[in-house]
């Protein structure tokens, strides 16, 4: 059946590609409304302080200011998780990080709003602040949230199997501390929200609210707006325009989205708020700094018998997705390899920094870095090939892991085979010149969380399809396309199922007034869940068309083949040969000539005329069949829903809700790097990344997602890091944050592995997140292969590489969590910065200040 598809499995341009390349596509900040005001937010300059008073009177008097709002204007707490309603749109009594939201001004221009912000007087009482999670956990007074003793957001302690026994019986135990520093999404589009109230037609007071926002979760936004603004959800419409990248940063409701609503209510005018890049870094919700103490027990043959992990996450000032993040870190120790005994202790700790949340590879990435690095150490110790040790620990699906995760399709073995072959691993590993090395690592991710954030029996996705007499197929889906191409996926699935051309399909997406509930673009759930809902909706419509067409063609509905815009009866001999499909534009022009007429121009009369002339026939065009079906049924529409099956929803222990998924994606990667031992600079030359996505519905998109994940992982591995000083972010800009540019980015060879999942739509699973986690340890392992140093703290900056090289030479251990390099020289030359040499030192230029004798008083 593999080659029996006409739409899916072929690379096509995204259906909204032209809007993006011509600049005509609209993102939230591109929208404006008549009379619209601009909002600006006043942020806290202190990491932890009590607000004694706020005086907004001067700001309110400034000409051009329409409204100034503070926390009291909408005091209801909210948060993305039901257990984490600890945020306010604007601070009520306390600010908890530098950048916390204090007040908002809505004015006729951004310049006036900014001027007004300076006129707001806030009296703060400073409180002790906590920046290090392990310090924060020890505190008992001045808590960040009064109801969280020891500033501990949540801790989990899981034991599966009998790890103690397994460690006692192990042949070898590896143990180590790994540290992954904090990273942020840095999506290219800064967050933006536009909120507008309509007047109630009966009373003239403020009525319905419409919010356009750069969000991955329109439905949750509608939910939280209702909560804070105390309005019924039915009175709130959330529309997601094009979104310029999310990566998890827009997967929860952040204060800006609520503040815009409050400001629009206070000003009684539309209000748009767009973050500056610096504000985006404060809004954050990225991947927390994570300390992983990891212990792995193995037998001499390389079989893993137990894993023990203690994970501490520096979660920032609010819960955000934190409880889920800390659970993912433990849960996804399982489902990649066969590990019979697991002990997990996870601590999510509050600190006075911006809240961390979900970021691509949510919760799994930093632990995977630790695990795959340690596995590499074990392989070296056992003198075993790192690829081979991974092969020896494969799962044997279908199975249920010790921590209750159901695994069905499992393409990991083929992924490993593919990258070993493509990278010529066996011929080259360990044989490259000094300074150059190869490293291997694997990872996996969920294809949608099997349990939604708000526990209920509601379907996770519902899709409606409507077809009218013009033959146009309109899909109403709540799926939120954030650039990953979900609109295109939905169109492909529907067109494939209905056997029509892609150009017939119009996608109406992510508008809570028009589209049925979909819980959002997070946990890599959209292709699997919304794809399945679309498939079911299309099948329902197809059944109706087939019933009507069967009567016209005198055959049984089940025998009708839908393909290439035609319905054919019986053996399909009349099916037109499969057309090769180049890019999107060709498909559009091709469809215009279907059945020799301009699409949409067949009127009922002429069709009946045609039928009379021809009598019963062997085939019908799609349009004819649609018209017949509408005549027969009265209307043509279908609905499909998807909820994960109960057996995929995980075990019964506390915290078992996070980790289970109907299917898991798998990735294996080889990275080739070189290390400059003089400068500590690591260069990644190439990454081979094989990803099991079940089935590639649109291969060019799958490859794009895999490459993008690998690239983002490489950023975390080498350069990206949020650098803090006393709660203040030192690098809140794209250049300082060091997102890699084209010159630093290696070639990534994406290899698609198709395991055809039994429950995925056409067998598809996720493609956008699972590959990220493997890249960091693959690079770490390649560095070890190149120069023999084991880096346990990411990113692997030149400073850390040099420190590790020095530590290796002097056999001095590196303490990673002190933030200070213990191997660094303590004496420096006077002119600053240059290392102190005990001997003569290198030859210096005659004008080098170090050569000049010091002249106190500067008589030179």
């Amino acid at each position, binding site marked *: 059946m593999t080659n029996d598809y006409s739409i899916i499995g072929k690379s096509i341009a995204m259906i909204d590609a032209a809007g993006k*390349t011509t*600049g005509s596509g609209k993102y939230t900040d591109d929208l404006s409304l008549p009379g619209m005001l601009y909002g600006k937010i006043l942020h806290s300059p202190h990491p932890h302080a009590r607000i004694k008073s706020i005086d907004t009177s001067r700001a309110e008097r400034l000409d051009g200011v329409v409204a100034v709002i503070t926390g009291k204007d909408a005091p209801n707490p909210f948060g993305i998780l039901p257990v984490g309603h600890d945020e306010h749109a604007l601070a009520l009594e306390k600010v908890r990080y530098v950048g916390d939201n204090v007040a908002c001004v809505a004015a006729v221009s951004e310049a006036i709003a900014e001027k007004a912000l300076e006129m707001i007087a806030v009296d703060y009482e400073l409180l002790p602040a906590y920046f290090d999670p392990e310090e924060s956990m020890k505190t008992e007074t001045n808590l960040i949230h009064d109801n969280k003793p020891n500033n501990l957001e949540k801790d989990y302690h899981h034991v599966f199997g009998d790890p103690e026994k397994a460690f006692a019986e192990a042949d070898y135990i590896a143990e180590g501390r790994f540290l992954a520093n904090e990273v942020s999404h840095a*999506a290219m589009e800064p967050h933006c929200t536009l909120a507008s109230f309509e007047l109630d037609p009966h009373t003239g007071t403020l009525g319905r609210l419409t919010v356009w926002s750069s969000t991955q979760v329109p439905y949750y936004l509608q939910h939280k707006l209702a909560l804070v603004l105390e309005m019924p959800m039915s009175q709130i419409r959330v529309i997601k325009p094009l979104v310029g990248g999310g990566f998890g940063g827009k997967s929860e409701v952040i204060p800006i989205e609520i503040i815009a609503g409050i400001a629009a209510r206070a000003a009684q005018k539309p209000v748009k708020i767009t973050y500056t*890049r610096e504000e985006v870094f404060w809004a954050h919700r990225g991947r927390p700094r994570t300390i992983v103490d990891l212990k792995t027990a193995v037998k001499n043959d390389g079989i893993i018998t137990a894993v023990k992990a203690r994970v501490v996450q520096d979660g920032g000032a609010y819960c955000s997705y934190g409880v889920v993040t800390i659970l993912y870190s433990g849960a996804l120790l399982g489902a990649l390899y066969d590990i019979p005994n697991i002990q997990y202790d996870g601590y999510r700790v509050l600190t006075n920094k911006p809240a961390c949340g979900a970021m691509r590879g949510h919760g799994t990435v930093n632990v995977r870095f630790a695990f795959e690095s340690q596995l590499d150490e074990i392989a070296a110790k056992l003198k075993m090939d790192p690829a081979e040790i991974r092969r020896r620990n494969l799962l044997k699906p279908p199975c249920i892991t010790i921590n209750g995760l159901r695994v069905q399709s499992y393409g990991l073995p083929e992924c490993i085979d593919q990258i070993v072959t493509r990278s010529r691993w066996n011929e080259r590993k360990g044989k490259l010149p000094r300074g150059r090395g190869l490293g291997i690592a694997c990872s996996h991710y969920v294809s949608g969380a099997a349990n939604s954030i708000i526990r209920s029996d509601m379907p996770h996705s519902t899709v409606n399809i409507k077809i009218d007499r013009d033959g146009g197929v309109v899909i109403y889906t709540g799926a939120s396309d954030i650039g990953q191409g979900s609109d295109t996926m939905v169109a492909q699935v529907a067109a494939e199922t209905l056997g029509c051309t892609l150009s017939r399909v119009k996608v109406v997406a992510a508008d809570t007034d028009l589209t049925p509930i979909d819980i959002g673009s997070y946990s890599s759930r959209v292709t699997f869940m919304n794809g399945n809902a679309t498939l079911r909706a299309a099948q329902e419509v197809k059944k109706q068309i087939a019933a009507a067409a069967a009567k016209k063609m005198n055959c049984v509905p089940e025998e009708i083949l839908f393909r290439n815009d035609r319905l054919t009866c019986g053996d399909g001999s009349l099916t037109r040969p499969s057309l090769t499909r180049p890019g999107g534009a060709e498909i559009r022009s091709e469809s215009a000539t279907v059945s020799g007429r301009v699409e949409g121009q067949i009127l009922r009369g002429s069709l009946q005329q045609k039928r009379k002339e021809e009598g019963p026939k062997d085939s019908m065009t799609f349009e004819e069949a649609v018209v017949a079906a509408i005549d027969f049924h009265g209307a043509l529409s279908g609905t499909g829903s998807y909820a994960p099956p109960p057996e995929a929803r995980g075990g019964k222990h506390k915290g078992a809700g996070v980790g289970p998924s109907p299917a898991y994606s798998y990735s294996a990667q080889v990275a080739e790097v070189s290390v400059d031992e003089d400068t500590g600079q690591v260069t990644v030359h190439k990454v081979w990344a094989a990803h099991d996505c079940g089935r590639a519905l649109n291969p060019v998109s799958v490859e*794009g997602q895999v490459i993008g994940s690998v*690239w983002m992982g490489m950023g975390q591995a080498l350069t990206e890091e949020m650098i803090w000083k006393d709660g203040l972010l030192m690098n809140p800009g*794209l250049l300082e944050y060091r997102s890699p540019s*084209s010159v630093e980015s290696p070639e990534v060879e994406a290899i698609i592995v198709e395991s055809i999942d039994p429950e995925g739509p056409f067998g598809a699973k996720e493609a956008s997140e699972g590959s990220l986690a493997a890249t960091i340890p693959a690079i770490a392992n390649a560095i070890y292969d190149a120069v023999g140093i084991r880096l346990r703290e990411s990113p692997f900056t030149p400073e850390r590489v040099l420190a590790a090289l020095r530590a290796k030479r002097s056999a001095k251990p590196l303490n990673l969590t002190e933030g200070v390099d213990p191997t660094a020289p303590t004496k420096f030359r006077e002119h600053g910065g240059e290392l102190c040499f005990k001997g003569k030192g290198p030859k210096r230029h005659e004008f080098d200040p170090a050569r000049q004798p010091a002249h106190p008083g500067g008589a030179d």
Partner: protein
Amino acid sequence: MKKELIELRVNGLTHELAIEPSALLLDVLRRDLDLTGSKRGCDDSSCGACTVLVDGTPMLACTLLAFSCEGQEITTVEGISEHGSLAAIQKAYGDWGGAQCGYCTPGFMITVKHLLTVNPDPTEEEIRSALSGNLCRCTGYTQMYAAIKAAIEAEKKGMATLK
């Protein structure tokens, strides 16, 4: 600040505008002329999403005063389509996955168009170097190279279609 009159020539049309002398070109394009194709991704000329051509040279509109562009020919992403349909590079970016979320894409369109104007047959090294002023957070750039090569091929063949 008091507004002053300015004549700006954008995509072949002259516009008479009243703007503040401190107004940035990007704000004038987006707010006064409704040319929202050029994007703001940062505030300090680090991302390249606002790249426009000023007299044929790629410039960052987010740190350029509109007044300084008077009398010059400005081309935005809205002005690079050819004969009412996609330019080869626009089509190639769509077909080869050069654009995912698309927010950085207008900047890349301008940068690549300029590159191919001054150097119709660039090496991979030259492409990488030319693109390094524009950041993308989705693609990892790899598929952009394929798109650019395809666009060059298409231009060579003088065809509007690719592959």
